[in-house]
């Protein structure tokens, strides 16, 4: 991986050690006693979370999918998730000057209800973990828009010890909006590009993520040292 400059990141044994170190006590395998004295073995990472991998969901065929894609493109619900400096460019979108609602774009506070995610600038290692969790909790079909040069090649944080360089090694990106930082107008243009892409039926990022799940996971685990969560977050 070109973006990984730190030799320590590639030491498998060290990764395993730190992973065990960072797994919280309540997530470790242990024995608990039930109210009537029974001993039960609990392994939270297996018992409380689904072990299922993401499934590929094939689109419908013909006119139906075209109509549904039109509806999806005209109703883009964006997850209110801000990373880096670009997050300050998003709030003006709902102000009278830019008014994203007239394009069918709205903000949603929860990943379950949103269909698009904006990675708004540099992603630190700590935030990457949260971004992945949120992305995986979104319902299919889901779209990712990346702002700024930081998400394309690292930008001014290219040799930082604490940020990732190429976003599309960690999650499938539909649209990049270049700039440092892009203004809200550029974001609106990005939304129009995203709409075009959805209408053409090319925004199948969720299926791409399911198809190449192992590759994405390997990349993510190389960066995130304290992996104290299940492999796929429902």
């Amino acid at each position, binding site marked *: 991986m070109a973006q990984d400059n730190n030799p320590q990141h590639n030491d498998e044994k060290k990764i395993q050690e730190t992973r065990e170190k960072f797994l919280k006590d309540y997530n470790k395998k242990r024995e608990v006693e039930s109210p009537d004295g029974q001993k039960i073995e609990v392994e939270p990472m297996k018992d409380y979370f689904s072990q299922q991998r993401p499934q590929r*969901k094939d689109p419908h065929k013909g006119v139906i999918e075209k109509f549904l894609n039109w509806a*999806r493109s*005209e*109703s883009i619900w964006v997850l209110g998730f801000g990373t880096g400096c670009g997050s300050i460019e998003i709030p003006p979108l709902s102000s009278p000057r830019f*008014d994203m609602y007239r394009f*069918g774009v709205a903000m949603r506070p929860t990943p379950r209800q949103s269909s698009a995610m904006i990675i708004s600038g540099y992603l630190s290692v700590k935030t990457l973990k949260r971004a992945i969790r949120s992305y995986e909790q979104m*319902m299919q079909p889901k779209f990712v828009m990346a702002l700024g040069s930081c998400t394309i090649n690292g930008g001014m944080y290219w040799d930082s010890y604490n940020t990732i360089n190429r976003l599309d090694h960690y999650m499938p990106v539909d649209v990049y909006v270049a700039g440092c930082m892009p203004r809200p107008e550029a974001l609106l243009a990005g939304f129009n590009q995203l709409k075009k892409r959805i209408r053409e039926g090319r925004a199948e990022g969720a299926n791409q993520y399911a198809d190449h799940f192992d590759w994405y996971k390997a990349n993510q685990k190389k960066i995130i040292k304290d992996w104290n969560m299940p492999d796929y977050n429902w």
Partner: protein
Amino acid sequence: MDLLTRVLFTLLGLFIILNWGLLMTAIMRKLTARVGKRVGIRWYQPWINLVKLYSNRNSISHGVMFQLGPVFRLLGGVGLVMFMPLIYGSELFTNFSFAGDLVIILYIKFFGMLGMALGAGEGGHPYSAIGVSRGLSQVTTVELPFTLAVIALAVQYNTLSITEIVAAQQGGILNWTLFTNPVATAAALLSMLGIFMHSPFDLHKAPNEIPIGPPTEYHSSYLGILRTNAAILHVIEAVLFMNLFFGGATSWPMLIVKTFLIYFISVFVGVVFPRFRIEQSVRWFLQVPLILGIVAIILIL
């Protein structure tokens, strides 16, 4: 009239109410946007949102109650339509109303909310729990003045049938409950602000605070059902107020105009006032509207 015709016309009424509810939601969002000097959503946005939500490719479940929550909520909305006489004087659109429909409507109005509370509770998100506890405690205090006003009406007209209450108000604007019993109307209209849950009283979802409250974990078709139901509820609760206090409607255009104006009251108040906190809201409902409700009862006895 046989049962099949009755069912078919109830479904037709439900269809009209659903579409009018979606259009009304869009118009109100447009109005609030104009107040903020924005252009706002397009008038057909609610329909697109529904298509999108119902066509999401996957959905997950947190358990049986989680799945039943939206169904119960929809049952609340559809049940209200079923037992509500929509058009006065039209045999086709009186639906399944009967002699005691006022009581069952008061019950069903609360039922959907309870089902939703159980479903949202199983979703397990902390914001859902906060939203549910706030919403239920507010609704409990809202129901008090509203029920007092309704009891005052039942005593005044000596009936528990909505059709008869509407019939008693026919023959001129001065026969409306609004003029024959202004105190009860005031109590009910103030508690209506809490029933529609617009801005000063939208603390169960509290945007920017506990982002959307109870439906935090709901997505895809679950959320689609909730949104469908919200559109139905907005209209049918306005129809309830129209029937009880504003002389009912004798035709569909009149129903549309009256429900729009009634719903507009709560939107207007919502645009002007910022959100209450829960203790302020509960205290407010237990002061002005409750006292008005008690006065209405005392005056009618």
